[in-house]
């Protein structure tokens, strides 16, 4: 029971990290960035690349190496997010919603199969594994590494919360999400703030990618597809566009999956999660913390 709870919280913190990027971009320009899960994949591969090049040095340092790699991966995926926004999404701002969605699907496709070209179709094994000795805590088996990964996730989320609520950029973000035109009139550089949002969201996904690579040990070019869907589910559960909601939703989804898997069996895990998404959309489409979204005419 405690074990299930712990597993749920652990997986949930991954979901929450990825869901944050989803929800930030959606909150600010109402765009479902399908390529977001693939930025997570990109992060995992960048981490893999750096660790492979650094080789022996990295394996000796273990956890610390992973932290450094994570920062590098965050910078790379953040930049990738910037490029994506500039090349694919900015030219279509104000275009019909369908066109933007299709562009996002194209971007996701290009990232997945571009990575397949670059790294080959076979799964890669992460050179650094985080498999320490488990410690018994209230009946659950917990490794120090697991605990530290959760701690990193919490720190990143706290940092984001401060950034959005406490800095000038954050205030600009909130202003744009309320009314982009009015924000422009007030002298906010809307393009720059949107670009920054993409950078931050993508960097968080990249961090989650490295963490997942280090923890599960295996990465492949399609790994972002399912996690993207899950992150969206988490964002919807929490109330899409809402940052605290994304964290809450990620943890809730992780717990649900953990208990659901114990109940119906591991092979039904994804069906359970997506089925829950559909049920949730039927019963409470605005999510736990979401406000009622009305479409503006």
């Amino acid at each position: 029971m405690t074990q299930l709870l712990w597993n749920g919280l652990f997986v949930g913190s991954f979901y929450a990290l990825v869901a944050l990027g989803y929800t930030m971009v959606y909150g600010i320009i109402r765009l479902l960035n399908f390529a977001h899960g693939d930025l997570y994949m990109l992060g995992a591969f960048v981490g893999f690349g750096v660790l492979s090049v650094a080789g022996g040095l990295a394996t000796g340092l273990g956890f610390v190496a992973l932290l450094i790699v994570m920062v590098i991966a965050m910078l790379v995926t953040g930049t990738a997010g910037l490029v994506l926004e500039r090349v694919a999404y900015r030219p279509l701002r104000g275009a019909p919603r369908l066109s933007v969605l299709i562009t996002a699907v194209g971007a996701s496709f290009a990232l997945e199969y571009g990575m397949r070209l670059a790294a080959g179709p076979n799964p890669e094994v992460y050179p650094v594994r985080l498999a320490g000795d488990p410690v018994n805590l209230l009946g659950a088996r917990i490794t120090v590494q697991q605990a530290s990964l959760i701690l990193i996730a919490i720190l990143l989320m706290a940092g984001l919360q401060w950034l959005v609520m406490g800095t000038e950029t954050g205030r600009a973000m909130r202003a744009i999400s309320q009314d982009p035109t009015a924000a422009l009139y007030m002298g906010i550089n809307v393009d720059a703030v949107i670009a920054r949002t993409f950078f931050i969201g993508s960097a968080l996904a990249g961090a989650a990618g490295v963490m997942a690579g280090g923890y599960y040990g295996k990465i492949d070019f399609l790994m972002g597809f399912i996690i993207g869907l899950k992150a969206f589910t988490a964002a919807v559960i929490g109330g899409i566009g809402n940052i605290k909601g994304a964290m809450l939703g990620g943890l809730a989804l992780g717990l649900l999956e953990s208990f659901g898997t114990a109940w119906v069996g591991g092979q039904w895990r994804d069906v359970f999660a997506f089925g829950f998404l559909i049920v949730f959309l039927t019963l409470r489409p605005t999510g736990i913390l979401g406000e009622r979204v009305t479409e503006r005419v």
Partner: protein
Amino acid sequence: MTTNLATSPARARALFDRIQQNRYLGLVGLAVALLAPFITATNYALSVMTSALLFVMLAVGLNIVVGYCGLLDLGYAAFFAIGAYVSGILATRYGWPLLATVPVVIVAAVVAGIVIGGPTLRLRSDYLAIVTLGFGEIIRITANNLTITGGPSGIYGIPGIMLLGVDLSGPVGLYYTCVVVVALAVLGAARLGRSRLGRAWRFIREDEDAAEAMGINTYRVKLAAYIGGAIWGGLAGILFGAQLSAISPPSFTFLWSALILMAVVLGGMGSTPGVVLGAIFISVLPELLREAADYRYFVFGILLIIVMIFRRQGLWPARAVERQSRRDRRRAEEQDVRKAEEVVP
């Protein structure tokens, strides 16, 4: 000389417009499809052509949802899978003839369409995209886990189509069956697009709020489009089972849904000839470019972005103005004559 240079693009465009508006275009396409086996009829060529036809049917079905109604369905392969599995299970485990499974498949597709479309179509249209994506995965994983669907190895030994005692299971028989079915499907979808319901779909695509203000029940009309797409996909699934005689979960991944979407977007959303050509292009191209297989999907992804930024209407766009029906034109002519008579007593 200079004038000639200036007018030639305009002339080419006029010619293209005339070709595009030609009412016999569909018949020409049908004739090409009927005559193709006389040019080359190896088993390989027939199988490529049959697959292309199936792809055309899927693309035309998705065009109802994406092209006419402007809803993004990213799990279209799910309906394809439902059709293939329902007919396959009934045919192999219960010994039904394939044709008898058609009504059951239609019912199953409609039910699935209502289950997915019902709750999500009430919300913003973005939600539909991602829920259908999840739905595609649900169907594939379910087929992979259940015993009745044969698990990961799937269903094999699906019989061919028998019609009035004639065996149509050979490559030639199957090809011509597909030609007939797909021709009907294309015609049906095109006529649906020009119907009253089709006009409502396009209205919703252009401006949902205005459509609602004009008294269109947008929810029901959108659901109708979604269910229409589901039926087309389910029926294509039956033909798919008949063609391959074996189906398994890997045949119904997101890749399929994305490729069908690609065909619709590239050809021109809402344009029947465009979508048909787009589907043929997408399904035959890989056969021609075997060496470049690795680059294919990467290029497709880039192409989707480029098309959306630079040519949103696709390569063969839909006409903006509806063609007048023969009756309307006659009426307009009669009115002109009457006006002329009034002026010259």
